[in-house]
């Protein structure tokens, strides 16, 4: 079988799309550049934010501060900045809602009396739990107040001649066995997701242009009169689409490797294995998916009647193959032989293993590569069948 037709179509599609700013931006800029930079930026932001939060004093507004001088001195000594305010209850709520004060502690009028009488002495802590960034501050204030309470209790026991240790029958010792790398799971989930999505997006516009676009322009009909088997035409287009996906994949992984090296992951207690060797392995893990992705996109846009229609379909459909990744994230799936048969998921799991610097099971790699290539070949054959149909002309 002569393949010159496939080669001719491949070269023409590759060259033509190189001149199309839209294709070029989606293949070479959006995914590969913005994805890694966005992730690196988010990680960096959360790192610097958590660092700041750990170091920063927490601002606490207190109404009726004069009623609990000892408690406030205790808090001040432990990194809480007390600001005395004069607000009634409604005013307090309003201040928290409008965030003029983020956390407000209200000392009731009988606080001192109840404490002296040995009765539970409530204090009221106002905060807005819908503001995620304040959670840590509230937690710290709450913990400090409880500690203050425990210290008072211990003093009371001592005064009554009881060893305070006996009222703490159980103490919990926490040992965290997660390695720095395995702690990076959330970051990694986002990263593999973006690598796979960016790879697909790299071939998206070419797939649309080469199928639905070609039909809409009216050049498809003449193309079909070339003395070549029709399926060779779509094979050439799939090959061009695959080449753009490969470029996008390589660039995305390299960009991740570079961008993450600027991020102080170690400060999160996380290390990610993203050196040149790991990057090459990541690319190799995903490469078999390219045939699958290119055929998949070509088939879907081959069904669309116009460029615009194809764009609408593909915007949705491009996310379908990445669905298993979301489940993997939610269910905390681990690499298993059975999961290696699921395209995209198997690549995600393999990539995660590599980045966590864990040993790779060779049989997993074989299953993932072979099954993905088989699915890709089936889809490519179906795309060829689609191009043999007369209805293709619309």
């Amino acid at each position, binding site marked *: 079988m002569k393949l010159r*037709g496939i080669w001719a179509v491949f070269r023409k599609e590759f*060259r033509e799309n190189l001149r199309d700013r839209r294709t070029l931006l989606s293949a070479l800029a959006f995914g590969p550049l913005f994805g890694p930079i966005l992730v690196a930026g988010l990680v960096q932001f959360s790192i610097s934010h958590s660092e700041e939060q750990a170091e920063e004093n927490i601002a606490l507004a207190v109404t009726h501060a004069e009623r609990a001088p000892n408690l406030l001195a205790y808090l001040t000594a432990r990194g809480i900045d007390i600001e005395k305010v004069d607000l009634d209850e409604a005013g307090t709520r309003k201040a928290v809602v409008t965030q003029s004060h983020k956390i407000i502690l209200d000392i009731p009028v009988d606080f001192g009396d109840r404490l002296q009488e040995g009765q539970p002495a409530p204090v009221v802590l106002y905060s807005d739990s819908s503001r995620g960034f304040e959670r840590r501050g509230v937690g710290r204030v709450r913990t400090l107040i409880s500690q203050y309470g425990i210290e008072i209790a211990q003093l009371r026991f001592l005064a009554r001649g009881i060893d305070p240790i006996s009222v703490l029958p159980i103490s919990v010792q926490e040992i965290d066995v997660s390695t720095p790398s395995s702690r990076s799971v959330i970051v990694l989930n986002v990263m593999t997701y973006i690598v796979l999505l960016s790879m697909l997006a790299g071939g998206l516009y070419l797939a649309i242009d080469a199928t639905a676009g070609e039909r809409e*322009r009216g050049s498809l009909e003449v193309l079909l009169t070339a*003395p070549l088997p029709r399926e060779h035409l779509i094979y050439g287009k799939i090959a061009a689409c695959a080449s753009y996906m490969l470029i996008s994949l390589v660039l995305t992984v390299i960009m991740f490797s570079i961008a993450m090296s600027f991020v102080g992951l170690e400060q999160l207690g996380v290390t990610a294995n993203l050196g040149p060797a790991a990057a090459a392995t990541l690319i190799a893990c995903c490469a078999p998916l390219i045939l699958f992705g290119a055929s998949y996109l070509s088939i879907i846009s081959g069904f669309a009647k116009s460029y615009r229609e194809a764009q609408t379909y593909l915007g949705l459909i491009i996310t379908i193959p990445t669905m298993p990744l979301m489940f993997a994230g939610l269910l905390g799936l681990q690499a298993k032989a059975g999961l290696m048969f699921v395209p995209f998921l198997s690549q995600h799991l393999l990539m995660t293993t590599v980045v966590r610097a864990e040993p790779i099971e060779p049989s997993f790699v074989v299953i993932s590569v072979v099954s993905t290539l088989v699915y890709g070949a089936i889809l490519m054959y179906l795309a060829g069948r689609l191009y043999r149909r007369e209805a293709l002309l619309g």
Partner: protein
Amino acid sequence: MLEARGLYKSFGEVVAVRGVSFTARDGQITGLLGANGAGKSTTLRMLYTVLKPDQGDAFIDGRSVTEDPLAARRAIGVLSHGAGIYNHLTARENIAYFGELHGLGKADRADRAAELIEQLEMQPFADRLAKGFSQGQKLKTALARSLVHRPKNVLLDEPTNGLDVMAVRGLRKVLAQLRDAGHCVLFSSHVMQEVEQLCDEVVVIAGGAVVAAGTLDDIRAHGGDRLEDAFVALMDGGENKPEAGK
């Protein structure tokens, strides 16, 4: 030479072409004349092998379009309806791409593209991207593309649609050149004047069937001095024929 023999084609319920037979000879321009939806495009599409006839067959220089479509395709040049070209390629690249698809070597297709650019007077825009081309420039590019492999037979579907007078005159000149060089030229049209000015033979199609065929004089014999009158007379005569959609 193009030969249609009893071509039938239906799309679902709609019968588009019902038993079309005619012959287009070498060294002649044959016009396929008919109203919109008469079945001209469907007939041409079967001749240039993108549609398979339900019944009947067509022969390109004796090669069956149903049995050996690849061989048939090598012998035809096609200008399809709308003449779509690739916007991000230059005119020259558009031509050379089809040369490559037709199996021309690198030097051969470059020579051939240069030759056609000169023949069709495309020099001013030959190396510009096709993005901003006028209808006339697009048509010339599409025409050159269809001629790149030196086909003996040239099929054009409504080639003058959307062209201005100068472009139509240019096209006429090229088609006449092709005829004089011994090519078989078949084009479809619903414009009487065009057919009258260009064609040696006319095939009139209505309701998916041939209602008249022959030289211009043969057709005019059906009524009136002008082709238009004859055409109307033929349509009136064919009133009882079932309607056919596209």
